[in-house]
């Protein structure tokens, strides 16, 4: 049996993790780490070994049938895979890396997880304690590097701390507003035997840390009053709805109140796109109607979103006429960008559940018509043109439209960063929740390929399709090797325009057509994939588009479909940076 099929089988039978019998035994720090991970319900790890983490890898060897470790090709890949995994499996993703370059290679992915509130737990090896601060081989001060980009980080130099610190790390990563944590473990702490027998206790609280609180009645009734009297209410869905699994509650809330719903980039798939109340995406490349009408709404209720500058554009002209009900679990988000009339500090699910009985049943027909009118305008001026495919002129949007149709809005779409990301966000149809992964906050090129792999690990039963630009693909292309070795059928679409398209678009629109270093001379992606053992084909003509998408989707193995798209198409609508949401341009 090949490694690939063996791996695939191992993943298929995961679930019933055998218990270990090491409780109350003296074990080494490394083994304590592995046992602690098992206690936390971890069964999947993405990592890359090296000198300073070798004792942990040695302990892992003994537990390789319990903990499924994937060897990535670059530590950044491990972090993004852990992100994709975390979001699909609904539990923290775990990464291992060695000290020095291993740890620094994690940094981009950790920063990504921080901005997008993704729970990942990174374990790094560190040089022995006596070498700390001596510029020893592969010593990097990873704690100082990680501090501003983690929810929490900690360096362990005493093996006995390991179970306690792992429990704390997992509790922090997944509670409240989730985020990345990092544990740096010195080599001695890995080697040394614990002085006390191994015992594990899950954390339920930490002094000074208030991850969540119940919504306050007074706020709920104030919010309900605003909503019940609103003539033009508007609801924004953010990532928080997915994180708190509040999709059903949201649906019930909307069916009762009839409020129009728009989504942020990371909120996509929390609300079905074919629902009559869904009016599209907010933000810079969002839809016309929701951006324009943000400045017409009288009451805005935002659920689990943070009024990011890509959503709000110029804050000075943003929703000034509206009373804002801001639902967020994170106290520090209240008033950070937009001052709410009612700050509703709570988990999205709890807030929606508390609101449901106190909001009135309502109809907002004329308000919906305003959205419809603007949507029709966008359709005429933008969407219709985007759905063109003639001969060798294939547009990204048309690819996404057909992909959505063929997958019936049921696939998990993992988008990278750039024009293709915005096309995928705008034109994917979502009928199922948790069907959209992308790097929103950090905009990390190279996110999609490893994240799609992680997503497939986290949800093996779902079709996972990565949508990647030719620039992004080359940032983490080596993870094709990881995918091939795992044997998992990850579907990859590369939308090739031979440009760093999004940057080219800005240069065209705002820098007088000066295309400064944005043209790519690309390798033969199909040959590269074949070299990794992954099949693929290149589609250059509209006539082949359907058939090639079918081949991709029907493949039982990983597959790469490169689609050559129009070189110089721009993504519209667009709120030019620094402008207000109602300055949104259709062309």
């Amino acid at each position, binding site marked *: 049996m090949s490694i690939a099929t063996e791996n695939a089988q191992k993943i298929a039978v995961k679930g019933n993790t055998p218990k270990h019998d090491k409780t109350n035994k003296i074990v080494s720090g490394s083994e304590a780490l592995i046992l602690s991970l098992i206690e936390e319900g971890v069964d999947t790890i993405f990592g890359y070994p090296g000198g300073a983490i070798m004792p942990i890898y040695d302990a892992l060897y003994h537990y390789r049938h319990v903990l499924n470790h994937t060897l990535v090709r670059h530590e950044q890949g491990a972090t993004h895979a852990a992100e994709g995994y975390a979001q699909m499996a609904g539990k923290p993703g775990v990464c291992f890396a060695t000290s020095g370059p291993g740890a620094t290679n994690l940094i981009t992915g950790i920063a990504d997880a921080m901005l997008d509130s993704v729970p990942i737990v990174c374990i790094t090896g560190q040089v022995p304690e006596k070498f700390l601060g001596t510029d020893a081989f592969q010593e990097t001060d990873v*704690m*100082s590097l990680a*501090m*501003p980009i983690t*929810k*929490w*980080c900690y*360096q362990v130099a005493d093996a006995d701390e390991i179970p306690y610190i792992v429990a704390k790390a997992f509790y*922090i990563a997944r509670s409240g507003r989730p985020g990345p944590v990092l544990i740096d473990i010195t080599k001695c702490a890995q080697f040394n035997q614990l002085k006390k027998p191994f015992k594990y206790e899950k954390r339920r*609280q*930490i*002094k*000074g*840390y*208030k991850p969540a*609180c*119940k919504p*306050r009645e007074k*706020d709920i009734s104030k919010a309900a009053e605003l909503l019940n009297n609103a003539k033009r209410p508007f609801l924004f869905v953010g990532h928080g709805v997915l994180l708190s699994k509040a999709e059903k509650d949201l649906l019930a809330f909307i069916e009762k109140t009839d409020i129009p719903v728009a989504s942020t980039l990371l909120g996509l798939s929390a609300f079905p796109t074919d629902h009559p109340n869904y009016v599209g995406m907010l933000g810079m490349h969002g839809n016309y109607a929701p951006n324009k009408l943000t400045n017409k709404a009288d009451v805005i209720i935002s659920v689990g979103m943070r009024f990011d500058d890509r959503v709000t554009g110029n804050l000075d002209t943003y929703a000034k006429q509206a009373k804002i009900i801001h639902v967020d679990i*994170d*106290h*520090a988000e*209240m*008033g*950070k960008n937009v*001052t*709410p009339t009612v*700050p509703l*500090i709570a988990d999205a699910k709890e807030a929606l559940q508390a609101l449901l009985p106190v909001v009135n049943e309502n109809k907002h027909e004329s308000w919906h018509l305003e959205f419809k009118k603007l949507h029709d305008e966008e359709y005429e001026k933008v969407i219709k043109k985007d759905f063109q495919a003639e001969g060798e002129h294939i547009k990204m949007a048309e690819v996404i439209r057909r992909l959505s149709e063929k997958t019936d809005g049921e696939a998990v779409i993992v988008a990278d960063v750039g024009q293709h990301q915005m096309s995928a966000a705008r034109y994917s149809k979502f009928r199922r929740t948790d069907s959209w992964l992308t790097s929103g906050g950090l905009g990390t090129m190279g996110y999609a390929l490893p994240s799609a792999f992680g997503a497939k690990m986290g949800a093996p039963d779902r079709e996972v399709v990565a949508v990647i630009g030719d620039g992004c693909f080359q940032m983490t292309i080596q993870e094709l090797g990881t995918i091939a070795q795992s044997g998992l059928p990850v579907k990859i679409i590369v939308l090739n325009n031979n440009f760093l398209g999004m940057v080219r678009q800005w240069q065209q629109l705002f820098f007088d057509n000066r295309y400064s270093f944005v043209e790519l001379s690309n390798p033969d992606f199909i040959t590269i994939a074949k070299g990794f053992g992954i099949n693929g084909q290149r589609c250059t003509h509209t006539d082949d588009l359907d058939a090639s998408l079918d081949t991709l989707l029907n493949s039982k193995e990983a597959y790469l479909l490169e689609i050559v798209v129009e070189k110089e198409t721009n993504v519209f609508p667009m709120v030019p940076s620094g402008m207000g949401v109602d300055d949104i341009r259709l062309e």
Partner: protein
Amino acid sequence: MKRRYTIIVFTENNFGLLNRITIIFSRRRINIESLTVSETERKGVSRFTIVIDYDETKIQKLIQQIRKIIGVLVVFHNEDDQVFFGQIAYFKVITSSFEEREKVMEIAHRHQAKIAFSAGDYVVIEKTGKEEDISTTLHLLEPHGVVEYCKSGRIAIVKDQHRFSKYAKNMDPEGWYSDEEFHELPLNGKH
């Protein structure tokens, strides 16, 4: 408008917390005027006293960000009239003759400063008080030859006992603000 704030942070006594707190300031390009870290009467709890000049419309956002740090137990900010505060300064003044020394001691005496140490040809004068008092003392001593001068950061006691204990009780055992108290914490744009 910019105002002077004394931020008081109670934290667990852990490695790295100083770093974690200061990066909140440096990331926003806020200059820290003074920073004092000290032990408290509670075991394992440290007290940070941080003085900054900062925009009154942004101070609350900053506090909310500091509160988010794991290991921070309590944080709140005060304007100068809400705290009793002071600093301590040492001045090393050369006193080559007996008359010199008499003069310097006389100045110290008049300004509620004391002679903390004296050697053959210099004295160390200790002055506690507000920023202005310390600079006046410096000003008066300078003509006599101040060869070394140092000043501590500000330390501050909260005047309103009720306000302080409202925050302080959240340092107590495991656990933290009740939901109700948490909701009552000040938010940016609302007080």
